[in-house]
């Protein structure tokens, strides 16, 4: 896993270098610094020519310090380091809720919001998916079973964000039942925590519904096919032959053995949830990293886009790592 993270970092570094993006980023940082230094120097040095010379000297010094005088490939270690510590300077377009314009500050503030939305949706959809998937697996070939594979096909082909737009059209515009976006009612002055929580839930409903619909189909389908394939394993027949009660066969033989492959699928499904959430956030103007991404693209905020690409990859890799540890716990075959 660590190797993967390094691989991603090096890849990103190379891309940023080759395309000249790193030059733009670094010159931005240099200019920012020079502006501040120039203001300070202006107090001490009155002669404008002397001031300019001093600034120019400093500029050359900074360019050397940032290795801007060397070709891009010499800077890869530095780029990687900078991305890792999120030292990507400042955002041009956004301020954090507390007023900072540092990329790291802005992103850190928004991570909890994204996590709240994605985990709620993933939890609900995986639970429903597991239950329905199991249920339809016990009735292979029935009408319900065929209906489930149709549902999963639709869910797979559904552009999540488009569904979000339709949901807004129906629930926010036509029926006026839910707010069309945001996380809290603007100007809500009540500080009562229960009211605030209900307000949050009210805002959370539509985006979670959208993600849920997009995710649940594949959950049902995968659970179903995994359970069906395990039903056909020899050890299930052995369990029956042993005269064990059906309940025991279901829990200890069927479900327990389905858990590792279902988990594998969960690992793979994470990619879908994370990427689906980016656009869902943008559509619902949910103040998480996804809408930040959207706004950064609209305003061509390079530093922000770089940092977010890295953060998304990082979140993904970390989530996979956690799930993989879980897998080892669940399946004795991969223990060493």
């Amino acid at each position, binding site marked *: 896993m660590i190797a993967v993270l390094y691989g991603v970092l090096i890849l990103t570094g190379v891309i940023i270098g080759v395309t000249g993006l790193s030059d733009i980023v670094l010159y931005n940082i240099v200019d920012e610094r020079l502006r501040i230094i120039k203001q300070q120097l202006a107090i001490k040095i009155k002669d404008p020519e002397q001031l300019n010379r001093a600034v120019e000297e400093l500029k050359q010094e900074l360019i050397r310090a940032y290795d801007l005088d060397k070709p891009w490939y010499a800077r890869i270690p530095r780029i990687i380091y900078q991305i890792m510590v999120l030292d990507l300077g400042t955002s041009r377009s956004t301020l954090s809720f507390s007023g900072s314009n540092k990329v790291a500050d802005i992103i850190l503030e928004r991570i909890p919001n994204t996590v709240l939305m994605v985990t709620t949706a993933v939890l609900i959809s995986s639970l429903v998916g597991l239950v329905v998937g199991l249920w339809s697996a016990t009735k292979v070939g029935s009408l319900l079973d065929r209906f489930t594979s149709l549902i999963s096909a639709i869910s797979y082909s559904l552009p999540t964000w488009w569904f979000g737009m339709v949901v807004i059209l129906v629930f926010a515009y036509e029926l006026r039942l839910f707010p069309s976006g945001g996380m809290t009612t603007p100007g809500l002055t009540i500080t009562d925590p229960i009211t605030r929580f209900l307000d949050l839930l009210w805002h959370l409903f539509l985006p979670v519904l959208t993600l849920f619909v997009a995710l649940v189909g594949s959950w049902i389908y995968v659970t179903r096919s995994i359970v069906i394939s395990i039903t056909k394993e020899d050890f299930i027949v052995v369990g029956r032959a042993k005269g064990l009660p059906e309940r025991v066969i279901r829990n200890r033989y069927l479900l327990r053995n389905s858990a590792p492959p279902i988990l594998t699928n969960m690992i793979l499904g994470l990619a879908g949830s994370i990427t689906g959430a980016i656009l869902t956030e943008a559509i619902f103007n949910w103040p998480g990293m996804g809408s930040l991404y959207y706004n950064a693209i609209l305003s061509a905020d390079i530093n922000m886009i770089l940092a977010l690409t890295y953060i998304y990859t990082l979140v993904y890799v970390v989530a996979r790592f956690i799930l993989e540890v879980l897998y080892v716990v*669940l399946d004795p075959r991969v223990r060493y």
Partner: protein
Amino acid sequence: MSLLDVKNLKIYYFTLKGVVRAVDDVSFNVREGEVLGIAGESGSGKSTLGYGLMRLVPPPGRIVGGNIVVSGRDIVSMDEGTLRREIRWKVISMIFQGALNALNPVYTIGKQLVEPIIFHEDVSLKEAYERAAEMVKLVGLNEDVLRRYPHELSGGMKQRVMIAMALILRPKIVIADEPTTALDVVIQAQIMNLFKKIKKELNQSIIFITHDLSLIAEIADNVAVMYAGKIVEYGNSDNVFNTPKHPYTQGLLKSIPRLKSKEKLSWIPGTPPDLRNPPVGCRFHPRCPYVMDVCRREEPPIKDVGGNHLVACWLY
């Protein structure tokens, strides 16, 4: 009195393309301490028969007729709960064909061996583990396999575990369905020796199902030869092996290599019939070297040719 009495058993698969008569009107019995060998090519219905004896025929298969009487109780008409609690594993247990996948991969061997004891008998966990340990030693394994997971064992070890598991409740009958097929020759010999030991030491009744007649010759007291869902020859091992009557049995025996024999190896031409649509008359007639007109018209009845040696063939 016999322990197991199977009468006119019929097991059909109801597929979309037609009814497959996998086991068609089969009768035999097993006495206390007897080893019955059931031989046949793949697709002859012998495995279905094995599953049928435990009423575990996978859908779309169904037992459509006949009786299976074990210790005086008919299990064909028995309700599922009673069958599960009082018959399965307790009276009839089974050693499965694909031993490699027959063990639950996520639990230790010990847990799986103890499981049936806990569910069928009122025994403490500690005692159950002690019995499991004993049984494991009986099948020639070290006690510490109880703590291991199936994937940590070799194929031969897994098959020994399977045998231990089948014997753990000391059932009256053990069905061994191709117990050595997936193993290499050396291990196969070891497992066969284990079966002989069990037969001798425990006086265990075994139904030994295999396509390999030479294995049956090693261990069985009686032999039933199946072809296309029917028993074509049934009798004492010595009689069947020394004086095979049915052309099919003769063909099978000729295809086994022998060290000392000068006879040429041969095989039976053709393939087993499609059981959705078996040939009219004797089901073996398209492949039979002695085929007569009557074979193409009518099914031969099963006849005693002397000394409880039964054959279904118009030649006799």
